[in-house]
């Protein structure tokens, strides 16, 4: 069973390969989009690499939400109560306090940091902090 530190190192190398960023820039609090310059198409690449590198299966839409065009989830560019509930369920490890004040769908992906991926993988592998 890998430690959190080992998972972080592997997530770090995953992001270096997927995004072409420098290792030192991949800090736990770095956001995937703003800090590391990821684009939406990179998410698929990241999912492929995490699956390969950790030997895990990531079902469609589990790590990164896909249904943001669903009117039940998003209305007027903001997550609905149902949308927020789904995000809470999918990202139990993310701090949503600030996001819930203004659940702008454009800001949804700002919630994703390197640590989000580490926690997701740790959760998948059953690793506790």
């Amino acid at each position, binding site marked *: 069973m890998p430690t959190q530190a080992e998972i972080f190192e592997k997530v770090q190398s995953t992001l270096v*390969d997927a995004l*072409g960023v420098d290792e030192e820039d991949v800090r736990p609090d770095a956001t995937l989009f703003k800090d590391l310059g990821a684009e939406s*198409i*990179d998410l*698929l*690449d990241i*999912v*492929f690499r995490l699956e390969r590198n950790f030997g895990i299966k990531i079902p469609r839409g589990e790590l990164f939400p*896909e249904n943001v*065009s669903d009117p039940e989830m998003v209305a007027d560019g903001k997550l609905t109560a149902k949308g927020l509930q789904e995000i809470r369920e999918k990202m139990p490890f993310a701090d949503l306090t600030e996001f819930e004040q203004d659940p702008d769908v454009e800001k949804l992906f700002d919630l994703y940091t390197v640590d989000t991926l580490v926690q997701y993988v740790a959760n998948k592998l059953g690793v506790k902090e």
Partner: protein
Amino acid sequence: MRWIWIDKFVEFRSGQFARAIKNLTLAEEHLHDHYPGYPVMPASLIIEGLAQTGGILVGEASQFAEKVVLAKIPRAEFHGIACAGDQLVYEVTLTDLRPEGAVVDAKAYLDGQLLADCEIVFAHLDNSRSNQMFGPKNFVFTQQLMTVLDLARARERSGGGAGAGDEATANGQVHDPAPGEATL
């Protein structure tokens, strides 16, 4: 000009591997522009040929039900150049396939030597959204592009002339497919 950057499939194993060839000729305009006085095959068009080989491999894996688009090239390394008169051999291995897309390992060889080594990520366009934008027609796998695969299948069925087996040896890499392995 037709946007077909492979000439022929010489091996096609569904959901696994495809090998295609691309012959280069001075009749191709782009060679004269890249570069004037020293015509070489643009690396970007070698990648396009690899992507077409891989795209058809990925599309065929789901019986062309998905619209497969090139999403990303995380890595592309070139070790040489190709000129008029050369024959490039494109070898593509499907390494990952999931509902949202696929990853292939794609290599180009010239005279048996590795010329280009790439990783290509393909996305399956979300059906509901792409239907809104482009309609239900599969604009990726048009008849123009599918001709290459259809032609290879026709030659395989006819079993004569320069069939798949013969061409597979052309780059010096003799491949002797096991019975039933090479299914075009």
